[in-house]
């Protein structure tokens, strides 16, 4: 997983409550065999018109927000189905940080699992950040994870909370797998012990 330390990027505002995972990625795109490549389906129903062409009014279809890496929304972001395809789609689109007053639990967890930083900030602060974001590329937001602040274009710093363990995982770019692999010595010695105690344990080899 990519490390998350600081991010200075264009932010896009989606001033809506309850943006569910179906909106983030509709069910018909789940028959895939991949977790990458879902970016083109992110926000499908808002991003494209029924004839398949881009909806020019949708924020992520406009410059400079087409390149947004931060998303700011209202309450209960990521509610609905538990599909891990939702963070996969956001990440593939280029989003590394989502900011909202509140999140649905599973989506919140799934973000961390995929290297996306979800930040909870009060609704008034989200309003301010949304208004900052309208200045587009003239107004990049900076997320400083080590110091736990969002830096607004005028230099004002907004602190945020994060679980220390999750912060560590993001800073080091560790997913659960990376974390477990830190116990490589223990796993190796376990394997060694079993090979000694149960030498009859067969392996699966096909010719």
């Amino acid at each position, binding site marked *: 997983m990519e490390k998350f330390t600081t991010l200075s990027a264009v932010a896009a505002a989606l001033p809506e409550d309850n943006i569910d995972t179906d909106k983030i990625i509709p069910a018909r795109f789940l028959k895939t*065999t991949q*977790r990458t490549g879902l970016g083109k389906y992110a926000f499908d129903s808002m991003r494209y018109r029924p004839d398949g062409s881009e909806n020019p009014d949708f924020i992520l279809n406009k410059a400079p927000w087409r390149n947004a890496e931060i998303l700011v929304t209202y309450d209960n972001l990521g509610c609905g189905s538990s599909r891990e395809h939702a963070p996969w789609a956001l990440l593939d689109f280029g989003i590394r940080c989502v900011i909202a007053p509140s999140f649905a639990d599973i989506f919140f967890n799934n973000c961390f699992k995929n290297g996306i930083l979800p930040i909870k900030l009060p609704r008034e602060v989200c309003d301010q950040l949304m208004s900052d974001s309208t200045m587009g590329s003239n107004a990049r937001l900076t997320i400083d994870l080590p110091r736990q602040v969002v830096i607004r274009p005028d230099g004002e710093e907004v602190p945020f909370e994060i679980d220390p363990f999750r912060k560590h995982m993001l800073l080091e770019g560790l997913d659960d*797998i990376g974390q477990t692999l830190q*116990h490589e010595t223990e796993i190796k010695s376990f394997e060694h012990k079993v090979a000694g105690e149960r030498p*009859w344990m*067969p392996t699966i080899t096909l010719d």
Partner: protein
Amino acid sequence: MAPRTLFDKIWDHHVVETLPDGTSILYIDRHLLHEVTSPQAFEGLRLAGRKLRHPEMTMAVVDHNVPTSDRTKPIEEPESRNQIETLERNVKEFGVPYFPLLSASQGIVHVVGPEQGISLPGMTIVCGDSHTSTHGAMGSLAFGIGTSEVEHVMATQTILQRPAKNMRVTVEGELAPGVSAKDVMLAIIGHIGTAGGTGHVIEFAGSAIRGLDMAGRMTICNMSIEAGARAGLVAPDDTTFDYVRNRPFAPKGEDFENAVTFWRTLATDDGAHFDKEVSLRAEDIAPSLTWGTSPETVLPITGTVPDPAQEPDESKRVQMQRMLDYMGLEAGQKIAGTPVDVVFIGSCTNSRIEDLRAAAQVAAGRKVADGVRAMIVPGSGLVKMQAEEEGLDQIFLDAGFEWREAGCSMCLGMNPDKLTPGQRCASTSNRNFEGRQGPGGRTHLLSPAMAAAAAVTGCLTDSRELV
């Protein structure tokens, strides 16, 4: 050391390390893969530049999406074809032992594992599929996992887990003639409910369970999930060891003897603590089936459909009525005699040779009733071959059953074998949720003998009347 259960012992044997928050890194002996839940995990490995840690402890097979008709033709549905081709590319790239579609060893992953001697007593076994619990019949700890966890096991050969609680379901006594393992398990689920095992691993014990062959024990453990349990287990004994001996991937010769010595130490110690205990009398169990859209809606075949009006709890009453409406049944009607349209004998619950023999015993010399479509889908290519050697295929074909290739088939209707709306199906599978076997389809879960009886009479029938 304090007395321990079978589950405790297998758990203790596999803990690599317990982390400060109480989660354990649990070592996994066998990782089984199929085409539906593995592609993103392989891709994750590839993206992170990680290796599959132990291909020689991993096995892959295609089952969920495969056609069970003529396999020499290309697979028609593009998405199914893509998932199968993706698995084939992945197993090649990562060096995973694989049973391809056209191999005789191909079949439902939960049939293939034990049959090949890949699933062995005392092991931890995982697969991205909830019915992994089936392998618990070997006396192993076997459970289903999600796609992120599949990737975790691929990369680390471990999984992060907290221990489950211990539950024991004891069935003492002798089963009446014509009563099978499926009836026992339906009776258990009917008794404890679909949440009865939540948070627990269930050990099935008692003389009636010990008296079952391995196929029967697999049927029982398979449906532990429908009882809400994390996994189900049966203590390994001589029946288990006789089954394992000489399987292709089982230990051989002296290794086998040493393995058996170890496996004998696994049984639950006298006085070990169970958080929950339930017991049933074998004699009380009749051939059973479900009437509703939850696996706990169990009736003996001699019973009548329950009346929602008798249910004091309002929300349950509403739910019961909804089930009756969906299933097209009337409160108070005798369940026997209800006409069926389709009969499905197959799935990881009941598609082994013993299941086919039980069905053939009922079907022999009879004809599938007019207007009924009846299909037999063996659990693996090897089961199919064995049945053909015994002439069971001819019994079924003469009776008018379809004789198919191995796979999940109508258990979940991912391939073209589906029910159409309103069709009633007597099915040996494990889930009867609305639409499980096809949108609007009505499923009655029952044993292979009962399914065969429904096929030849055209209605739900007490199989004991036919043997």
